[in-house]
Each structure stands twice: as C-alpha cells, then as structure tokens.
C-alpha cells in the first residue's frame, strides 16, 4: 500500500474466502427464508424459479460450508478465548455505548467476534449435517421419517439463528466505521487498530517497527 498509516489486517486469500462465502450465503439464506416464511416467497427468486432454487440451494449451502471450513482453518487461532477476553466482557456496556479510552486488551478479534466465529462455525456445521439429512434427492431416503422431521426443525432453527447472527455481524460492520473497508481492501488505519484491537496492534503490528519497550509476549 505504501502508506505507513495503514496496516494489513486481512490477507487477500482470507478476503477472497470471506466474500465468496458471503455471495453464496446470501443466495442460500434468501432462498431458505423463502421456504421458511412463505409470505417472503419472492426472496427465493434470487435463484430462479422455485424448482431451480430448490435444486441449487443445497449445492450453494455446501459451498458456504466448504468456504467457512477454509476460514475456520485460517482464523481459528485468532479466535481461541483468552483471559483478556474477560476484560472486554466486563466493559461490554462501554463498548456498545461507544465509550472509548480504556485499553481492553483486545487481540485480533474481540470476545464478541469470537462468539460470532464459534456461533457461525457451529451453526453452519449443524446446517450442513441436517441439510444432508433432509436432501430428498440424495440422502433423505436413508433416514427414518421421524429423524428427517427433527433434521428439518434443526435446519430451520440453525438457519434462523445463523441469519440473525449474520445480521448482527453486518450491523457491526456498518456501525464500526472502517471495518467493511478493512475487509475489502484488507487495510485498516493504525488509529483504528489501536482503538478496536489494542493488544493485537501492540503485539502484532507495533513490534514490526524498530521500537523497544514493553512487549506482551
């Protein structure tokens, strides 16, 4: 970038995983909603006529799952809970009320983002497994009807929960200025990094500069 005020937060490969997954997810989520809320039937037309949407939905769902598993491998080590996450939880009200100032020892992702990470990963896994079980064209016939019923319920619950989580995720991206741009270009400003991810900045970014003094290991 040649701009020393900007720091690389998300590599190109990770951004590509993220945005390709987003594209597939939008289509899967909208078509799924069209069947869960028949009054929103029109949402399903993002995938063409209803029969075609029914055919495409599971394949795109597998693409979402596969891309999220790639992201899991790439992101999991940043999303393991650590002791300093407690600081963030203790200051959750300040965080939500835009009260900056305290250093909350936030690593590359804050505790809320970690909850989102594990929520998405567990829900997509549940959606994947239950989705296979209710996939009438290939797999549903291998399961007894009462099991298929439970899988249908689980698929709906998990789908709703995931979409609501993602709405929250999108809102956070809109609310925290600079984060969507960060996920597109990969770069955030130093001030942004210090404000939202102070520990990450100190440990991963600042030390690359020729400066001594305290390190947090």
């Amino acid at each position, binding site marked *: 970038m040649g701009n020393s005020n900007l720091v690389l937060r998300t590599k190109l490969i990770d951004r590509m995983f993220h945005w390709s997954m987003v594209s597939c997810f939008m289509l899967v989520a909208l078509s799924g909603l069209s069947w869960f809320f028949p009054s929103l*039937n029109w949402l399903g037309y993002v995938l063409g006529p209803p029969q075609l949407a029914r055919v495409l939905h599971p394949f795109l769902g597998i693409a979402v799952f596969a891309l999220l598993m790639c992201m899991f491998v790439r992101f999991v080590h940043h999303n393991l809970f650590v002791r300093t996450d407690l600081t963030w939880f203790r200051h959750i009200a300040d965080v939500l009320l*835009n009260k900056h100032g305290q*250093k909350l020892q936030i690593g590359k992702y804050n505790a809320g983002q970690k909850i989102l990470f594990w929520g998405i990963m567990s829900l997509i896994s549940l959606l994947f497994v239950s989705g296979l079980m209710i996939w*009438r064209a290939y797999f549903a016939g291998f399961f007894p*009807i009462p099991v298929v*019923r439970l899988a249908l319920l689980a698929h709906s619950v998990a789908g709703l929960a995931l979409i609501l989580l993602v709405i*929250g995720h999108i809102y956070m991206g809109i609310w925290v200025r600079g984060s969507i741009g960060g996920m597109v270009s990969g770069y955030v400003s130093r001030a942004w990094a210090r*404000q939202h991810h102070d520990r990450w900045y100190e440990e991963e970014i600042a030390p690359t500069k020729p400066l001594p003094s305290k390190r947090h290991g």
Partner: protein
Amino acid sequence: MGMQSQDIIRRSATNGLTPLPQARSHEQEVAKLIDVSLCTGCKGCQVACSEWNDLRDEVGHNVGVYDNPANLSAETWTVIRFDEREDEAGKLEWLLRKEGCMHCAEPGCLKACPSPGAILQFANGIVDFQSEQCIGCGYCIAGCPFDIPRINPKDNRAYKCTLCADRVAVGQEPACVKTCPTGAISFGSKAEMKDLAATRVEELKGRGHDGAGLYDPAGVGGTHVMYVLTHADQPSLYHRLPDSPHISPVVRGWKEWLKPVGALGFIATLAGAFVHYMGVGANTTDETPPDEPEKELEDAGQGPNDNGRDA
C-alpha cells in the same frame, strides 16, 4: 390439476389473511370407505388406478410376498398390503389393506409444504398435489403421518392418490371404487359412508368380530378415506396403520411455533440494531495524532509514522 369447480379450504404455504376461493359453498364432504373384510386382494383397484391416472410403474420383482409392487411409489398410488397374523388361539389370519392417501381433514403434507399452492385441500375433503407448483423438496413426506407421498426421481415432484379428484369433480366415483369386484370399496358423502360403515360394523360384530369398527382417526381431524377394520382396536396389525395418527409435534413446532418466534427474532434484531445506531451513532475512529493518554504505548508504532498519518 386444479379443480376449478370445487372450493379450496386450505392452500399450502399461503397466509390465512388472504381468503381462498370460496364462493361456491355447497360442497359436500365425500369419503371412500374401504371394507377390509370384503377385500380379496385381487389388485383390481391398483390396475384401475394406474389405468385412469395413466401411470405405468416399472415392473418390479417378486420378493416373496403378495404385496406387488412392494411399496407405493410416485407411479403407484395404491397398493394392497398383505399381512399374516396368528391370533391368540393360533388361528392364521390374512389381513389385507388397500394402502394410499387418507385425505386427512388436517393434512400433515399440506402443513409441511413450503411451496404456495402446491397442495390444495378442497371443501369436499380431497387433498390434491398440484404437480406444476411442486418444488420437489419432499417436506410432504416428512409431514405425512401415514408415509404416503413419494417423489418421482424422473421429475422431482411429489405424487400420491388424488382420490380421482378429476372424476369426483364431474360426479363420478374414484376408479378403484368403480372397479372393485367385491364391493369392498364404496364412495359417497362422508355422512353416508359413516352410516354404511356402522351397518357393516354391526354385521361383523354379529359374526364374532368383536373388534370390528370404523377407522376415521380423530388425530388428523378424520379422514376422507376410511376403513372398516375387523380389528379396529389394533389398526397397526394392518401393515403398521397408525393407531392414533396425528401431525408430528416436531412438524407442528417447526411450522406453528418456530415461524412466529423467528419472525419476532428478525423484527427484534433489526429494530435493536436500528435503535442502537440512532442512540449511539457511528463508531468512528479519531485519526488525529494521539495525545497524552496514548503515551502508555511508549510510542509504539508512532514516532516514525507521524508524517504518514494524514495520508
């Protein structure tokens, strides 16, 4: 096929706030009554069904039982079930039952179906699949308490007995009824069929079939295909005919409970986000050089970069 001459009382995946076509309100509830004690298992009904409905299922294999084809399929809408049973006295009984759609008053298939108008219930009681609206998801299979609908792998659409809706609409009885040589299948208004069944049950009881009775299960609001069973106290003897069929609580929870809860979840999430934004405003970053409070950073990453900050 759409039965324009009949009232629609339920339509799959359709909001109840919008009334269905119901100007013609003279429809009488119809019913098919199958008297298992008169059935000889000739399979004439299966042939008549295939013939009238232009179904030609693939010829299967003899698997050592009389059930042939071995199961219902998208191209076999009715099949005679043959179950052997030894009673307490060691006497062999051969229990025959013509299996097919029961045309429930509360159809589980229709409740589960996500495709608007793919399943219709008419005022005369017929529950009919509208193949051109069917998306092939197979939810009707999960919704049905009787395991009746089948997806056709050729076209990915669900099929089942229509109760010959096309014949009934023009005043004819279903093909199976017309063809049955022993009179085991009757057709008429539901009230007439219940009367007929009551008469027949009395006869059977008089002949020593103490368990004889009518199968018109209340758990699904009654059905428009009813059985006279010689063992009405044990319907499951007849090839697992459910003793007390009902729409699964899981399906009800999915369609009746989760749907409003999910809608509230959406409203709450979107409203919550909007209110938060209105109240708190955007979470912006002050890009001007940090002053004293940031000092604890010990100049980390600052000193050398000050000149680049405004860029």
